[in-house]
C-alpha cells in the first residue's frame, strides 16, 4: 500500500467531498436513530424476516451466477468481435440499466409470462412457469443485474494486452484454453468487481421483481419487498428489516473491496 500523501488538500474539494459523505451517511443515521432498538430482536427473529433474507441471498447469488455464466461471454463478444450492429446489441443488452425496473418487469411478463411470447411455449411444452415463482425472481434480478457485470468486464477485456493471448496460441493453446488460462485470470479484478456490482443490484432489486414475480412470502418476497410491505403496516418492522439488509450489503462490500479489489489494483500497479 502506498502511504497517505501529506499534502494540504484543496479546501473546495474537501468541502464538496465531505458534503457527499454526509449525504450518504445521513439516511443511514436517520434509520439508526429512528430504529426501535428495544424490540428490534423480536422483529429480526420473526419468521418472515429471516425467510425474506434467505430468499434474497439465494436469489441474488443465483442471479450473480447466471450473470457470470452468460455475461462474460457476452462481454467477450462485445469487446473482441467487430460484428455489424455491435453498438445496437450493446445498447440492447445494457438497456435494463436505464429502464425503470417496473417497465422491465412488465416487459418480462409479456415475454415470459404464461401467455407471453415465449412463456406460452415454456408452459405448454415444458410445464415451466416463471411469473410468481422463485425462478421468476432470479430471472427478474438477472435481467437488471447482468449489464453491470457486462460493462465492467467488457472494459477490462478491451484493456488487456492481446499479445498475451497471441503468446498463448503460439505455445499450442486453443482459443478456449487461452480464454480460460490467460484471458480470464488477467481480468480477475474486473470479474470480481462486476460480480459484486451485479450482486448488489440483484439484492436491492424491487420493481422488476414485484411486477414479474409478485410478492408471495417465502416464494417471491425478497427483502426489499418485505421492507416495502412492512412500511405500510408496521414502519418499525420496516426499519429493522432495512437495517438488516444494509448491514449485510455493507459487510460484503467492505470485505470485497479490501480482499479482492485492492489486491487486483496492487497487482496491476506492479506489472506496469
Amino acid at each position, binding site marked *: 500500500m502506498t502511504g497517505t500523501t501529506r499534502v494540504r488538500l484543496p479546501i473546495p474539494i474537501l468541502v464538496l467531498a465531505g458534503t457527499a459523505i454526509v449525504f450518504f451517511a445521513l439516511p443511514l443515521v436517520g434509520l439508526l436513530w429512528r430504529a426501535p432498538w428495544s424490540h428490534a430482536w423480536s422483529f429480526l427473529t420473526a419468521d418472515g424476516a429471516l425467510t425474506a433474507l434467505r430468499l434474497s441471498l439465494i436469489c441474488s447469488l443465483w442471479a450473480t451466477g447466471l450473470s457470470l455464466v452468460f455475461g462474460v461471454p457476452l462481454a467477450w463478444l462485445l469487446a473482441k468481435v467487430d460484428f455489424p450492429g455491435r453498438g445496437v446489441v450493446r445498447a440492447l443488452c445494457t438497456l435494463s440499466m436505464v429502464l425503470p425496473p417496473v417497465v422491465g418487469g412488465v416487459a418480462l411478463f409479456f415475454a415470459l409470462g404464461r401467455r407471453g411470447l415465449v412463456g406460452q411455449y415454456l408452459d405448454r411444452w415444458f410445464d415451466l412457469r416463471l411469473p410468481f415463482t422463485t425462478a421468476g425472481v432470479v430471472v427478474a434480478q438477472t435481467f437488471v443485474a447482468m449489464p453491470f457485470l457486462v460493462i465492467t468486464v467488457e472494459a477490462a477485456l478491451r484493456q488487456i*494486452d492481446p*499479445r*498475451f493471448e*497471441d*503468446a*498463448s*496460441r*503460439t*505455445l*499450442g*493453446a*486453443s482459443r478456449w*484454453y487461452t480464454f480460460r*488460462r*490467460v484471458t480470464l*485470470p*488477467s481480468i*480477475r479484478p474486473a470479474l470480481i468487481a462486476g460480480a459484486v456490482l451485479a450482486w448488489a443490484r440483484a439484492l436491492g432489486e424491487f420493481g422488476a421483481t414485484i411486477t414479474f414475480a409478485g410478492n408471495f412470502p417465502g416464494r417471491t418476497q425478497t427483502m426489499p419487498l418485505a421492507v416495502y410491505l412492512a412500511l405500510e403496516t408496521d414502519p418499525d418492522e420496516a426499519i429493522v428489516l432495512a437495517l438488516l439488509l444494509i448491514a449485510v450489503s455493507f459487510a460484503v462490500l467492505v470485505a470485497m473491496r479490501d480482499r479482492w479489489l485492492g489486491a487486483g489494483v496492487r*497487482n496491476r500497479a*506492479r*506489472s506496469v
Partner: protein
Amino acid sequence: MTLEATIGTTIGSLDLDVRLEIQPGELVALLGPNGAGKSTVLRTLAGLQRLERGSIAIDGVVVDDPDSGVFAEPEARPVGVVFQDYLLFPQLTVLENVAYGLRARGADRRTARASAADLLERVGLAAYGGQRPTVLSGGQAQRVALARALATGPRLLLLDEPLAALDAGTRTQVRRDLRRSLEAFTGMRLLVTHDPVDAYALADRVVVIEAGRVVQSGTLADVTARPRSRYVAQLIGVNLFSGVVDGDIFTSAGGASIVVADASPGEAFAAIRPQAVSLHRERPHGSPRNAWASTVDDIDSLGDRARVGLDGPLPLIAEVTVAAIADLELRPGDAVWAVVKATEIETYPA
C-alpha cells in the same frame, strides 16, 4: 526440412511481399528499419495473421496458402516464438510459464511440471520456479521465454527483437547467453531485429527488408561490403547512390554526374566512403576529377574527427579531421568543394 515462405499481405499503405527460405540449423536475421514489415512476417509465420497472397510451408507441410484455402492455427504449427518483451504470463509462476505449452497440448500436470523444471534447471533458473515472472531481470525473463518457447519442441523458432527490451549495460551479456542457447537448438531460427549488432553476433545470414520488400540478403559481410539500400548504407555509414553507368560516367538518380573507374555499364550502385571525401574552399586542380560545389549543412563531431553533411548536386557525408575543419574555418551554411577521386568510388551492378 526447411522453411519456404512467400509472404504477401497489405497492412495499411504497406504492401508486404517477402520471399524467405531457412535451411535446417540455420539462423537467419531479418533486418530492417521500423515499419518495414518485419513483425508482420513473424506474425504470419506464427499463424497470428493470415496471408493474403503467397504460401508458407514448414518442413514441406503447407500451413498457410490462401489460394487453396489452407490455414493452420498457431497452436497447430511447429513454431515457437520469443516475443519482444517476452510476455511471460504474470498470473502464473515461472515454472507454470515454462510448463504452459505442454499443459496446453494435453500433457498431465506432473509430466509438464517435471520437464519444465528440467528446462529451468538447464537455463540456471531452477531457484525461481515458484516465483512470479515479475521478480526476474530482463536477461532472466528472456531465458525463461526461450525455455517456454522450446518446451514444446518446435521446428522453427522465431525471435522478435529479443534484446530490444534490455538496457545497453546488460545487452552484451544477454546476447552472449542467447547465442549459446540458440546454438543448442538445432531447428530453424529466424531473428527479427533492427540492430545490426544482433544480426552480426547471432546470425548465419541476414535478409534485409525495407518498405515490405527484400532489398538484400546474404552473409552480413556480403551485405555490408556492397550495400543495396539506404538503410544498410546508413547503418554502416557510407554514401550510397543508385544510377546508371555509361562509359566512365555514373549518373545518379538525382542527376549528378560522377566520374568512376572500371565500371560495367548499366544500372548500378555507387558507394563512397565518407573518409574518401575531401573538402576544399577553392576548386582544386590536378588528378581528382570529381568536384561538386556544395553547402555545409551540419557538422557532427566524433572525437578528433568530424562528419560534415553536405548539400549540393550530390548530397554527401564527408568525414574529415577536426583540424581540417579548423583550417577551412567551416561553419554550417558555408560554400565548399567536395572532392572524390574516381578510384575511391566503388560501383557494382544494381
